[in-house]
């Protein structure tokens, strides 16, 4: 009869049939070869797609790279009529909106993660986690719609007009622009909302992975719960939380539709005033690509896409490394010889 085999987690590739038996007749072997071949081809295709993206984008950007070289990234001029393209305004727009989005979102996300992981009893934790993750499921275009119909009018009435009419405040570089509605402020706020569920969920998972013993050790010394969180739990999770934040950054950088709908789409020079309109790398592509009829124009936009591709790949790579190393650290729990 079949000899019982002990539980193992070897992959099938390493699994040997019981000694002295030919587990599979020859036709079976051929079928298995085809099987493995099919799997290999499928995986190789996936790999090829990613490489193809990089390659295709580079090829399509060639005319623009050829024409503008590295100046492309440091010139703040976008002139489709005279075919003079420089993407700096959009790069700055992307970085600027992402920066504000993170400044707003990170404290709230980490606070919510701490609440969910450390404070909330399970009958609160599950529904609230679920609801916050719902935020991640809302499509970008729907956020843009809300931003357009609700956020921008509200901002104009309650924030931007009062501030820009205020004789003291409207001299600051931050507010030195007429009330616009669709501007960097609206885009940053929407990005903050969109990025929060990701940072919260990942941070919460990291905090929950920290073994309870560490908390008990602190509490047993007579520390309050907050002292324990602040002095022991958060430092332990620090690298992973940074990873979660960088993950959020990665999403903010690539966010397209919601930003396009509320950022005002100005081709003009980058103005760091919160109430001025602008563009990000993603939004300029979304706005202008379909109408770009001239090769050089399209190629310049594609080059921006290539830049976006490289930047998000780098940022997400760093995030995953940080999270991966934290998870290993936490599970290992340090050395106990």
């Amino acid at each position: 009869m079949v000899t019982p085999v002990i539980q193992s987690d070897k992959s099938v590739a390493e699994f040997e049939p019981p000694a002295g038996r030919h587990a599979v007749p020859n036709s079976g072997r051929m079928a298995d070869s085809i099987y493995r071949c099919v799997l290999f081809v499928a995986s190789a295709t996936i790999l090829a797609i990613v490489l193809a993206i990089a390659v295709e984008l580079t090829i399509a950007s060639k005319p623009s790279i050829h024409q503008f070289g590295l100046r492309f990234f440091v010139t703040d001029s976008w002139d489709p009529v005279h075919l003079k393209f420089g993407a700096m305004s959009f790069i700055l727009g992307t970085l600027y909106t992402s920066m504000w989005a993170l400044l707003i979102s990170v404290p709230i996300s980490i606070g919510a993660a701490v609440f969910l992981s450390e404070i909330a009893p399970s009958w609160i934790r599950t529904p609230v986690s679920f609801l916050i993750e719902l935020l991640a499921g809302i499509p970008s275009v729907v956020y843009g719609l809300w931003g357009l119909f609700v956020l921008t009018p509200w901002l104009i009435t309650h924030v931007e007009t009062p501030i820009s009419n205020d004789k003291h405040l409207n001299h600051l570089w931050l507010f030195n622009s007429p009330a616009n509605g669709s501007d960097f402020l609206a885009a940053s706020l929407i990005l903050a909302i969109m990025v929060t569920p990701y940072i919260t969920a990942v941070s919460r998972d990291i905090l929950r992975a920290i073994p309870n013993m560490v908390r008990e050790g602190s509490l047993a010394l007579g520390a309050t719960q907050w002292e324990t969180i602040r002095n022991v739990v958060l430092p332990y999770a620090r690298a992973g939380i940074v990873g979660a934040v960088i993950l959020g950054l990665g999403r903010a950088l690539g966010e397209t539709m919601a930003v396009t709908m509320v950022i005002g789409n100005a081709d003009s020079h980058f103005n760091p005033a919160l109430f001025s309109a602008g563009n990000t790398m993603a939004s300029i592509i979304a706005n202008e690509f379909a109408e770009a009829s001239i090769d050089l124009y399209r190629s310049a936009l594609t080059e921006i896409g290539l830049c976006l591709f490289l930047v998000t790949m780098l940022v997400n790579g760093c995030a995953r490394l940080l999270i991966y190393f934290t998870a290993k650290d936490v599970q290992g729990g340090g050395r106990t010889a």
Partner: protein
Amino acid sequence: MTTQEPPAPNADWLMVRRNAVNVICLTAAGLCALVALGALSLVLGYLVLNGFKALHLSTLVLGQMPQGEPGGGLRDGIVGTLMLLAVAAVIGIPFGILGGVFQIESKGKFAWTVRFFTDVLNSIPSIVIGLFVYTLVVLPIAAAHPGDGYSALAGGIALGVIMVPTVMRTTEEILRLVPSSLREASLGLGATQWRTMFSVILPAARTGILTGVMLAMARVAGETAPLLFTAFGSNMFSVKLDKPIDALPIDIYNDATSPYNYLHAQALAGAIILISMILLMSLITRYALGNKVLEQK
């Protein structure tokens, strides 16, 4: 260390302060969660309150009118989205599942590389994927057949590519949960590896894999950016693969950014329909399927 001494007055004040800080900070954390929930209710609340009002039967049933003429509906967009999802599924599901199975069946550098690049694929902004499919599919067709180019096929391919990493990751995770005793029993009986996978392991993981597929589809159903220059959108009813096709997210975008109020209302209705579709897919996976991750007979 006698226990009968009263605590020093300093110690008393310190305790009060520590307890106060504790309460304040824990409350602040709770407030953060509340703020996050508040944002959700602002967005969803507005949509629900105003979207259902704008949703009529005609919205679902009628096609588009030329801009400026009232009336009309989102039928084209709804049908278009379903078409695109179908094409996306044809690409995303096989590659995703096969990729996940490959990760289970093989270790080594190549498998690790594939997993790494799949993670990269997962983080590429969807508009860049749209650019890629444009360059790869739309341009060549436009060059060969002037006047053509934008197509439902191109849009579906873009969405399918976006789906692959999600399906692959969930398939792999689910397959890892299948007890190895199942595989060993099958192999021990003399079955081939592929038989074992297709007849024993995959069926056991069927529910979980379906969950992953549904979640991936829910994610791509709301994507607009990759469709902007692949499927392109259209104001005619179409189910042709080789012509531009309308899609619900595109409709929402165009309607919301148009200058007409009645189109704004239609955009809201569209948003409700889209969110309902996504919510329905997510809830089905979580509750009807999600409680049984593995089939147990």
